[in-house]
């Protein structure tokens, strides 16, 4: 789901009597809840309950600290809004298609919507993770060829404005 869509949903909930709204589109699920309001902001949270999980990345736009990506807000630039690309499943994180190939993406490089950024493997099932946002890779959060958890942030992306 695009950041702009999440923004619109947050505004919708903010100005309505709805306490909580969960929207599923393809493999992304976003839940917006007033009940978890902090500092006057409505929170958007990428959720994927165990029974509903996903093989495509979910985007999280942090508005204050969220349980899924606590490092989203850079301490040096507290106002910067980053989007996390998170792992859709438990598995091994690969930054390149083979050990001798260059990495799909590097810190500081741009990514486009639909661009493959990494592979997650479990049980020889390869899951190419595509970015759902265009922007710049600010940080790579996971180590190559290491285990990652479900919903673990893999990349932080500064979206194009």
């Amino acid at each position, binding site marked *: 789901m695009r950041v702009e869509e999440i923004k619109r949903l947050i505004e919708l909930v903010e100005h309505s009597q709805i306490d909580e709204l969960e929207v599923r589109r393809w*493999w992304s699920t976003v839940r917006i809840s007033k009940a978890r309001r902090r500092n006057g902001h409505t929170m958007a949270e990428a959720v994927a309950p*165990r*029974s*509903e*999980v*996903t*093989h*495509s990345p979910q985007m999280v736009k942090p508005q204050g600290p969220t349980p899924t990506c606590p490092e989203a807000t850079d301490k040096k630039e507290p106002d910067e809004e980053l989007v996390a690309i998170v792992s*859709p*499943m*438990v*598995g*091994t994180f*690969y930054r390149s*298609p*083979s*050990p*001798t*190939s260059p990495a799909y993406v590097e810190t500081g490089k741009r990514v486009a919507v639909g661009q493959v950024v990494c592979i997650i*493997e*479990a*049980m*020889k*099932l*390869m*899951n*190419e993770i595509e970015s759902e946002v265009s922007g710049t890779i600010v940080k790579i959060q996971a*180590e*190559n*060829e*290491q*285990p*990652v*958890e*479900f919903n673990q942030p893999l990349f932080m992306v500064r979206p194009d404005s």
Partner: protein
Amino acid sequence: MSAPGAGEFLLDLPREETIRILAASPLVRRWVWHAQIDSTQCLARELAVSEGPGLLVLADTQTAGRGRMGRSWFSPRHAGLWLSMVVGLQRPAQEWPLVTSLAALALREAVEVGAGLLCALKWPNDLIHRGRKLAGILADVGPGDAVVLGVGLNVGQRVTDFPPELRDRAGSILTETGQLRPRGCFLEAFLEALARWLERFEEGAGEEIRAALREASLLMGRTVCVRQLGGVSGRQESSVRGRVCDIGVLGELILEPLDASRAVSEWENSAGETEGAGTGAGRVTVSSGVLLEIDPPIEGGK
């Protein structure tokens, strides 16, 4: 669709017979056959975007058959069943890693039906007989609610057809039984068994599938050492040694670790999502990695 003309053979059976087998499978809506192709998996992934579930790609030989993480797969002409198929799935995507194990169960049955040979499964999904690998399976997620399943079964290779460095670890139906059998027979049995296992998967028969995987597993009760792939580069602690005490809900190995090292807590973290896998305190669930050691060794075993 490219296939030999009428009266010719396809996968060692009369063409009409192979076409009948393909038409009878609920998993096959459209099929493509190539005498030679770089990789059935690459073509299936390309075509999957427009064709969707039900596409099957077959080849007589692959020049660049794909193994895991860019490794090559040895697939000479006329010698094996090389196929990739687009399988539509209804279950939540987090359960999809089990599909490669379902394919392994189906292939094991196909080899038993087609050649009377009972193989074992070596985690994650290799088909093993007398310590030799007869088949490999891998899969790619997507597009949409589907996976592209790639299968390679060695049927007609002689020992000398394998590169010298593989001869004690690779085998075929021919090397294990002394008999050459039509590849089409294995295709028919595989498609039938896979359709049945996928149906059970969609019905949520996870425990039945786990029981079948336990029964087929070569590693149950053995002690293994598994290394997470990043373990070589200064992170030696990311390997774990333990006794295989169960198979997880996604087909993972569940180990009782023999040494309580840092690795265990790291691996427990990575396994934390597989709740319900039957992991008890201190047990480690392994969904990805490389088997370094197996004790007792499997050469000439089950």
